[in-house]
């Protein structure tokens, strides 16, 4: 069973995304901001992280910095999903570094496809 970590401050989207993935037999955990997500990622060791960009307290950029600096999770694929960004520059950086980008609103199929792609790429990479 593949493990997915969702980092998203909006409760509805966090819960709905979790439910959609659980229905496809993924093991899902969720966090409300970047720092919390980072702590959870170290313990949970997900196969893919799906992360929002704009969050209060610590955002997607913060998570990315922490994750890339940590040897235990730096190789985990990250997919960002976002409704936009206050800074186009940060937006570009995040998209460039990430393994996938999902624009809100997204369909169930788009979500499943981008997760599947990230997992496939990861297994190719580790072989």
């Amino acid at each position: 069973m593949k493990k997915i970590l969702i980092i998203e401050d909006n409760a509805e989207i966090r819960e709905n995304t979790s439910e959609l993935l659980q229905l496809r037999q993924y093991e899902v955990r969720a966090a409300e901001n970047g720092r919390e997500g980072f702590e959870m990622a170290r313990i949970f060791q997900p196969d893919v992280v799906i992360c929002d960009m704009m969050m209060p307290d610590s955002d997607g950029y913060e998570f990315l910095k922490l994750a890339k600096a940590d040897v235990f999770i730096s190789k985990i694929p990250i997919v960002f999903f976002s409704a936009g960004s206050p800074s186009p520059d940060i937006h570009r950086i995040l998209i460039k570094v990430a393994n996938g980008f999902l624009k809100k609103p997204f369909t169930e199929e788009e979500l499943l496809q981008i997760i599947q792609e990230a997992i496939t790429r990861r297994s190719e990479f580790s072989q």
Partner: protein
Amino acid sequence: MMPDHYHLFDHLREGVQLIDNDQRFVYLNDAAAQQAKIRPSDVTGKKITDVFPGLERTSLYARIRACLSSGSMERLTDHIPLQDGSSVWFDLRLQPVKEGVLIFSADITAEKELEALQIQADLERRLLESQTETSDYKHALDESCIVAITDQKGTITHVNANFCRISGYSKAELLGQDHQIINSGYHPASFIRELWVTIAHGKIWRGELRNKAKDGSYYWVDTTIVPFLNEKGKPYQYLAIRNDITARKQAEEELVKSNEQLETKVQERTLELTQALEREKELSDMKSRFVSMASHEFRTPLSAILSSTSLVEHYLQPEQTEKRTKHLDRIRSSVKNLTNILDEFLSLEKLEQGKVETHATTFDLKESIQDAIEDMEGMSKRRRQTILFQYEGEELISQDKKILKNVLLNLLSNAIKYSPDEKAIKINVQVDPASVRISIRDEGIGIPKEAQQHLFEKFYRANNAVNIQGTGLGLNIVKRYMELLKGSIHFESEEGQGTVFHLLMPRYRDS
């Protein structure tokens, strides 16, 4: 001895005399004797130089000698001193002959005197002419120019009427003074020094000077100073010829002034344009803030709607009714959320177009605030926040109830949104006979100092709020609403500590 044929000359009108090789008189005719005021018998056989003691110094004597020695023919006009001290002009021809030299002479003294008289008359006439000419020039100069003459030290020795007129000084006041008397102090010392160096070297100086008249007014003169030089080439006096150019200078100054005004106008226009550009840029910034905000604020509820719809499709079994209901509620709430955003836009649009009308009614303020708190409790309870309410004074007020409620809902939802979980929100109301004060205090993230001045701007989001959902319109609308209520809004805030908004409005809103 004299040959006999010389007697043929005796009565000739022309003077004839024969002088032998020893320079002695041999023969003179009557005319010659008369001319020379001598008698032939007195001089015959005598040396010519003995008869005329001054003769050696004349040209005639030199020519006689030349004629005797080389046999050349000579012709000359000479002025010969006579025995009685007088002198006579002669026209003379010298003819060498075998006995010596034959001299033909004509007395031309009268013609010479006439000629001299004519020359003198001519000179006098020319002098007169030149005097007249000089006086004409002087007259012309005096008429047209401002003229002054100074000695080599600069002391004024002559001024003309124009000088007196323009300077306002009388001739008596000026003579004996130097030009310091009309010095305006306008020109730098170096300029004046250069003037003096030029004329002291005997050169003409030309330039424009500003002078001061007796009454303190200024006048400009175009000036030429001509040094008059003595035989050693040193200036002994200076002639200053000036022309009044005050009008031209004033015109120039006017031109400079009007150029400066033009410059100022150009600068003003540039400033206006810059300001217009800034406004344009502000508008454009606002537009991009709006696009970014709209994108985020619309996409988030749309995401919830789309994913909940997918989930409803998964929960088709009868035992999954509860899950279905949850997602249908979620869809409804997201749609409501979208509608609220849209309403906010529309309110703003209406406010900006001045289309919002106020209707004052008398109502119970305490009740109205309690209603607002109830409306927001769902939101605050989720965050485990408490809303404390304190009310003092009369309960009835006369205001636009709907607008005031909108203001309260807006400020309350902000207090909840920008406060951490479990914090308290306090509402205080004080109703006085004529005024109503409401304060809403939170213990939230606060407003950064640099953000405070922009807080009521459209689409503005403080740095610490950009990641929190919001349109950036709420406070702009609240401020406009408070203006409609003839009231005011202000706030105090410290980042990380919390914020309090104060509302003040009249208790009785007219009309």
